[in-house]
C-alpha cells in the first residue's frame, strides 16, 4: 500500500480549507466591521445590545429547532404556529399568575411533544412529504390555537416571573441570548459526545447508513422532530415573556427566517450534518443584517430583497463548498499505485 509522503501529509494539514462554518464566521466578522466602522453603528452600545440581543436569542433558538428537522432532509413549516401557540398557552394556563407558571410550562412541553410526534410519525413512519405535512399541521395548530384562545382572553399578560426573568442579562446582553448560546453548546455536546446524540445525527443524515450499522433510524428521526418541537417551544415561551402580551402575530416573522439561518450555517436542505454553531452564526448574520439595514432606514421591501439574495448566495455557497470536497475523495494520482483502500474515501467532513 503506498502512502502519502510526510511532506504531502504535512502540507495538506497546513492547507487552509474553507468550510461553511468558516464562511459564515467570516461573513459575520465582515458584517460587524462594516456596520461598526463604515455605517457608523455602534453595535456594542448597551442600548443596542439590550434591545437587539433578545431578538437574536429567539432567532437562534428557533433556528436551532429548524436545524434538527433540516438535518433529516425535512423542513418544518409549523414552527411559527408553535411559537404563537406557546404564547397563548402562557396566557391561558397561567392566568397571569406566577404560581401557575410551572403548570403552563408543563402544558407547553406536552403540547410540543405531541406536535413533534405527530410530525415525526407522519413524515418518518408514514413517509409523507415534510413540506406538505408541516404545512397541514401548521394550519391545524393555527386553527386549534384560535379555538383554544376563544373569543377573548381575560388575561393578556404573562406572569411577572417570566416577564421579569427574560429581562435579565449580563452586561446588557439579554438572558434570552445567553440561554440560546447555552442551548447551542449543549446541542453540540449532545451530538458529538453523547452516544444517543451521535446516533441521532447518523440516523438524520443517512437512514440507510444507520440501518447498515444496526441503528434504528425511524425512532431517532422521529426524536429529531420531537426535539425540534421542544426547542421551538422554548423559543415560543421566551418570545411570550419578551412580548409580555403575546397575540396571534407572535410567530409570524419566523417562517422563512428560521430556514435561512440554518442554510446560512452550512446545512444542505436535502439533509445531512447540521452545525448548531453554524446556525447560531447564521442567526447572528441575518439579525445583524436586518437590524443594520433598518437603522440605515431601508424599507421592509429592500430588507426582504436582501434576505432573499443572502439566502440564494448562501445556498449557492454551500453547494460550491461541498462540491470540491466530494471531488477530492475520488481523485486518484495517475503515477501512483492504486491503493487497496483509498484513505480519502474514509475522510469525514
Amino acid at each position, binding site marked *: 500500500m503506498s502512502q502519502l509522503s510526510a511532506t504531502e501529509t504535512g502540507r495538506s494539514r497546513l492547507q487552509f480549507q474553507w468550510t461553511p462554518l468558516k464562511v459564515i464566521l467570516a461573513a459575520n466578522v465582515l458584517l460587524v466591521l462594516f456596520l461598526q466602522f463604515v455605517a457608523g*453603528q*455602534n*453595535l456594542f*452600545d*448597551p*442600548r*443596542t445590545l*439590550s*434591545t*437587539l440581543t*433578545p*431578538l437574536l436569542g429567539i432567532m437562534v433558538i428557533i433556528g436551532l429547532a429548524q436545524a434538527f428537522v433540516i438535518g433529516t432532509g425535512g423542513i418544518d413549516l409549523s414552527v411559527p404556529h408553535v411559537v404563537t401557540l406557546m404564547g397563548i398557552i402562557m396566557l391561558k394556563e397561567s392566568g397571569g399568575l406566577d404560581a401557575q407558571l410551572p403548570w403552563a410550562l408543563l402544558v407547553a412541553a406536552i403540547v410540543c411533544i405531541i406536535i413533534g410526534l405527530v410530525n415525526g410519525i407522519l413524515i418518518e413512519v408514514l413517509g409523507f412529504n415534510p413540506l406538505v405535512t408541516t404545512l397541514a399541521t401548521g394550519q391545524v395548530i393555527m386553527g386549534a390555537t*384560535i379555538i383554544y*384562545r376563544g*373569543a*377573548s*382572553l*381575560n*388575561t*393578556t*399578560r404573562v406572569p411577572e416571573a417570566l416577564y421579569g426573568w427574560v*429581562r435579565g442579562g449580563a452586561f446588557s446582553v*439579554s438572558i434570552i441570548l445567553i440561554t440560546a448560546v447555552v442551548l447551542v453548546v449543549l446541542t453540540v455536546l449532545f451530538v458529538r459526545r453523547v452516544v444517543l446524540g451521535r446516533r441521532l445525527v447518523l440516523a438524520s443524515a443517512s437512514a440507510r447508513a444507520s440501518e447498515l450499522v444496526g441503528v434504528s433510524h425511524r425512532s431517532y428521526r422521529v426524536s429529531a422532530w420531537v426535539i425540534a418541537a421542544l426547542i421551538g417551544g422554548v423559543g415560543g415561551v421566551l*418570545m411570550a415573556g*419578551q*412580548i*409580555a*402580551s*403575546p*397575540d*396571534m*402575530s*407572535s410567530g*409570524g*416573522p419566523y417562517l422563512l427566517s428560521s430556514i435561512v439561518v440554518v442554510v446560512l450555517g452550512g446545512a444542505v436542505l436535502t439533509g445531512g450534518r447540521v452545525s448548531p454553531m453554524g446556525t447560531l452564526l447564521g442567526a447572528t448574520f441575518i439579525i445583524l443584517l*436586518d*437590524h443594520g439595514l*433598518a*437603522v440605515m*432606514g431601508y*424599507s*421592509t*421591501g429592500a430588507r426582504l430583497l436582501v434576505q432573499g439574495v443572502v439566502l440564494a448566495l448562501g445556498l449557492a455557497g454551500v453547494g460550491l463548498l461541498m462540491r470540491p470536497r466530494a471531488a477530492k475523495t475520488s481523485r486518484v494520482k495517475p503515477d501512483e499505485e492504486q491503493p487497496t483502500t483509498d484513505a480519502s474515501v474514509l475522510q469525514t467532513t
Partner: protein
Amino acid sequence: MLSSESKWRKAATVLAAGSALALILTGCSSGGNTGGEEAPATEIDTSFEYDEAVVQEIVNTAFGVDFPISDLPEETLEGFARASVELTPEQVETALGCWKKPQCTIGDGDLHVGTFNAVDNLWQTAAAMNVMLQAMTYPEVGTITYAFVNDLPSAQSAVRSMVADGVNAIVSYNPFGSAMAPVFQEAQAAGTVITTYVGETPDVGGDVINNQVYAEACDAGTAMGGVLKDDLGLTESDEIAFFFGTPGNPQDTLVQSCLEEELADGGPSIGFNQDTDWSRPGVAAATSALISSGVPVKAILNTYSDPMPQVVDAYDQAGESVPAILTWTEMNEFFGIWESRLGTDQEFDLFYTNALINQSRLALTNAMTILAGGDVPERTPLQLPVIKAEKGVYQADLPGDFPGWSALIPEDVIIGMTQ
C-alpha cells in the same frame, strides 16, 4: 363498432359534461335575483325617533371628545341614535350566545346580514359584535352570519357563500382593499348590499362597495401634526418617528403625507420611518432599530395602539426615557402602563383616538337604509380627533385588550365578552 367499455366511458363523459353544465346554469341563476338587475327595496322601517341630546352624548362617547352632531354626515345620526337603544337581557344573552357563531338567529325578521373578519383579536371581533347589536335594533333582521377568514381567497369564498346563502347585506372591515372588488361586484349583482367600516378602500366606487364608513386619514394626519406642534411644542429642530403598519398600506401613506404637509410649516421632521406590520414583534424590531440609530426622536407616531407596549419595553430595556406617543385606537393594557408611570420620572405624553369600532354600527345602519331604498352616499368620512390621555383612562377591572367605551358596546355585553 364501439366496445361496451368504450360505450360506457362515452356515456359517463356525456353525463358528467351535462351535470357540469346544469350546475353552471343553476349557479348563474341562483340568489333569487338575476345578475344586473337592481333588487327591489326591502320593507324596512327606518324611521327612528331620537332625542338629539341623547345622540350628542353617544357621539361624544364615540369620539372621545365633545363633538357637535351638526358636524357629522347626516346618514350617521340614525346610526349613532340606534347605538343608544338599551337591549333587553334576552337580547344581551342572544348577542353573547351568537357572538362569533357561524350563523345565528337574532330576531324574527326575514333579513339576513353577513359579516367577516380577518384578524381574531378583540378589536375586530368587538366590531363584529357591534354589527350584531346594531342589527338587533331592526326587527326586520332575523339572521346573522359570521365568517373568520385567513386571507384573500377565503374572504372571497366567504362572501360568495354568504351571497349563495341569500344574505341581504354584508357589513365588514375590508383589509384586502380593492382585491375584493370582483367578489363585491358579484354580490351586488345578486342584490346584496355591501358596506364597510374603518379604512377606506380607495379607487372603488359605489358599484363595488355601496357605502364606506371610515376615518378621514388625511385629516387625522393633519390633526396629529397639530398635536406635535401645538400640544408638544415641537419645532423644526426636532425629529419624530413614524411607524408604518403593513408596508405601503394606503391609509398610513395618506396619513404620513398629510402629516408632512402640516409639519412643513415650522414643525418637526420625520427622522425615522419603519414598517411594523402593526404587530408586536414588528414594533419591537422597529423600536430596537430606532434606539440603535441614535435619532433623538421626541415623539413616535403610529396608527394602531395594540403593539405599542413594545415601544415602552424597548426603551426601558435600553435605559432611555420613552418619547411622546401618538397612536390611533384605544388599548387598555397600554393605558395601564401609561397610568402607572404618572408622577414618576418615567412618565411620557400619550395621545390616542377613539377605537373606530363604532363605525361598524354606522355601516350596518347605512346598509339597512340602502336596502330600504334610501339614499346613502358612497362614502361616509368621519373626523378622527386626537385625545390627550388623562388619569382614569385605564379600566383596571377590564382585560388588557379592552378596546374602550368609544366602541359603544354596552357594559353588560363587554363584560360577557371578556369573561
